[in-house]
């Protein structure tokens, strides 16, 4: 069953490195210098870092001093959730409530759970509508119960599984009214939507390079001036004492190169991806009329490259396996425990039952996606679903 040529529809997991980023990183890998050093080699490296920092800051509505480089999205989420919680609670022991949606990425979800289990936090899970969006009134009610007891709030900008976009500016505004730190995981949104720290008034935003054509292993927490999270990593005091560790200069340079290209192309790319994605949806529904599109309807409320379906009567992992055998890469979008697919917590949070949560697939497009990819999926999805239904327990 060797595929003609592989069809990659899992850009939300990771996406090919942009040539500019690859070139920048390769060149920089041959250079010497620790940006913390005071001598010539260190200064050269530091200049690369600071120029990269300025570029990234400008792209995302932040000051350069508001960019804290991390090893990626997970680390930035951990730093935001734990660091802001600890700082707030230290300032006022009554502040122990952490508000987050039930559909956050595990890097936020598990961090919040850990704080609840080990650090005396009270986790409060904000319910989302069937579209995956959290309403302003839900947040207002949750805060309103006892505003003085909330340590921090974390709500992702756009959901990684179903692509639903949250009204971040309004939600951050609500938090600001009560002077509660507001963090948003913008990992999926950056590169597809206009993400800005200043425009939203958020306290912290998470971004990562490998979702926008940069390398894996580098990301950033955009952290508003004045926010002082307790660090997770202690050491040499880099990144204004917030995140210690020698900076990965080649990766940072590549990150900036990717951000530059992604920002320049964002608006056109969003239109192109949305058109491809809408055609993907049409082709899937034509082949499998009873497939259900999960998440917000296509439009400004949904990531342009994201399509997520439930296929009644099928197991997602059977579908995945059958598509994989035909050279088509996609994802069930859910976390694995020991490799066994669990029903998607995002779908469960949206009110889906176990069967629907298990029988789902996420198709996500990116900068290298073409019409041929969509057509390849459209050509086989019908028979794949047929077979998966037969194999269903």
């Amino acid at each position, binding site marked *: *069953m060797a595929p003609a040529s592989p069809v990659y529809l899992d850009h939300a997991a990771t996406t090919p490195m942009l040539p500019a980023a690859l070139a920048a990183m390769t060149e920089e890998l041959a250079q010497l210098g620790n940006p913390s050093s005071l001598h010539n080699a260190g200064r050269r490296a530091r200049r690369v870092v600071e120029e990269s920092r300025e570029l990234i800051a400008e792209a995302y509505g932040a000051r350069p001093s508001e960019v804290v480089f991390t090893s990626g999205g997970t680390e930035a989420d951990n730093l935001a959730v734990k660091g802001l919680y600890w700082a707030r609670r230290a300032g006022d022991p009554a502040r122990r409530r952490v508000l987050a949606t039930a559909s956050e990425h595990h890097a936020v979800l598990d961090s919040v759970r850990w704080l609840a289990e080990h650090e005396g936090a009270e986790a409060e899970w904000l319910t989302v509508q069937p579209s995956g969006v959290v309403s302003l009134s839900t947040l207002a009610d949750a805060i309103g119960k006892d505003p003085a007891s909330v340590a921090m709030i974390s709500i992702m900008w756009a959901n990684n599984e179903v692509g639903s976009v949250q009204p971040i500016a309004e939600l951050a505004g609500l938090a600001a009214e009560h002077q509660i730190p507001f963090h948003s995981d913008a990992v999926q949104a950056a590169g597809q939507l206009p993400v800005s720290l200043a425009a939203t008034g958020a306290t912290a935003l998470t971004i990562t390079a490998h979702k926008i054509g940069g390398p894996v292993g580098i990301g950033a927490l955009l952290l508003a001036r004045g926010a002082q999270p307790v660090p997770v990593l202690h050491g040499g005091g880099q990144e204004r004492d917030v995140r210690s560790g020698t900076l990965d200069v080649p990766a940072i340079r590549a990150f900036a190169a990717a951000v530059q290209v992604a920002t320049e192309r964002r608006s056109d790319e969003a239109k192109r991806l949305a058109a491809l994605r809408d055609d993907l949806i049409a082709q899937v529904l034509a082949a499998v009329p009873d497939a259900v599109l999960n998440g917000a309807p296509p439009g400004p409320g949904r990531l342009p490259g994201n399509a997520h379906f439930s296929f009644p009567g099928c197991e997602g*992992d*059977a579908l995945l*396996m*059958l598509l*994989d*055998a035909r050279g088509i890469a996609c994802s069930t979008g859910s976390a*694995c425990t*020991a*490799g*066994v*697919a669990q029903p998607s917590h995002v779908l469960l949070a949206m009110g889906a039952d176990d069967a629907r949560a298990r029988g789902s697939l996420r198709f996500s497009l990116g900068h290298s996606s073409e019409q041929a990819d969509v057509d390849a999926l459209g050509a086989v999805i019908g028979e794949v679903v047929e*077979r*998966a239904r*037969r*194999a269903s*327990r």
Partner: protein
Amino acid sequence: MTTLRVLAAMSGGVDSAVAAARAAAAGHDVTGVHLALSSNPSSYRTGARGCCTLEDARDARRAADVIGIPFYVWDMAERFHADVVEDFVSEYARGNTPNPCLRCNEKIKFAAVLDRAVALGFDAVCTGHHARLEPVPGAAGLTRLVRSVDPAKDQSYVLAVLTNAQLSGAMFPLGDTTKDQVRKEAADRGLSVADKPDSHDVCFIADGDTRGFLQRRLGSVPGQLVEPDGTVVGTHDGSYGFTIGQRKGLGIDRPAADGRPRFVLSIEPVSRTVTVGPAEALDVLEIDAHRPVWSGCAPPAGPLDCLVQLRAHGEVHPAVCEQDGDVVRISLREPARGIAPGQAAVFYDGDAVLGSATIATTRPVGSGH
């Protein structure tokens, strides 16, 4: 050779890894699958006990990556619990001695897994079992089981419960190889599981304490230990803790009148009575076994001379068998001891499996026919 789409079940052990590697090397289109059989897998293997921990899943994945085949994990925990674990417990509660590996092969590996594989387009399920498959002489298109070339590792006994239909969907690449050769081949193929110890005993009882496992599920069911004449010689906490022929751990407070050791002769869970007696009382000449499966020959019309094996890794006994409805009456030529209801009776013609049935009742030497 036809190229088959093969689903290789990979436990994380060396046998299934080499089996998968051989299937791939033979040119088949192989996909590796690890069966997650526990809803609550422990993180690490501790020595030879237990199986299918998270570490095992990782070992299987690594082996699949080295071999160069796709790899997935299938969640069979619910089915396994219902068909194998619960059956194990209820058999003991009934006073029988079950063989869970047999049940797993019968209900999970070559049923649930094979069915799902076929539905997804696979032609066969490949495992690392030590056994061979060959055509049944004179029966076109049928496959039968034959012992492995390594008698110490032969697993035909636990596979003999499979039907011809199930065997036609099975692949056992290791049957012509000894265990030592398999380990050497694993090392040659760059599989790091070459030195991993084999798992022993019951895979879902990681600490090896079957009695404790059963006690947690069945609780305390006190009863009496008696001699054949009815004399009470002790008490026990649950008849499920005993098996026919058992000598150790009887908890009897005084020696037998003749000073010789006592053995468990029979278990009656309803009256909670465990009967113990001298070794000779264990001698059995006639066995009734039910639910026969004949894969190596047609169900016998008349008496059948064969060899019968009555426990895993047990010796074979010359016997004559006769089928009457759902029951196979086995008459041993020489008495055998420690035959436990619930175990399988597997019928052999030399090294070839003719069929198997589940031991239901035994008749001791000297009893009426």
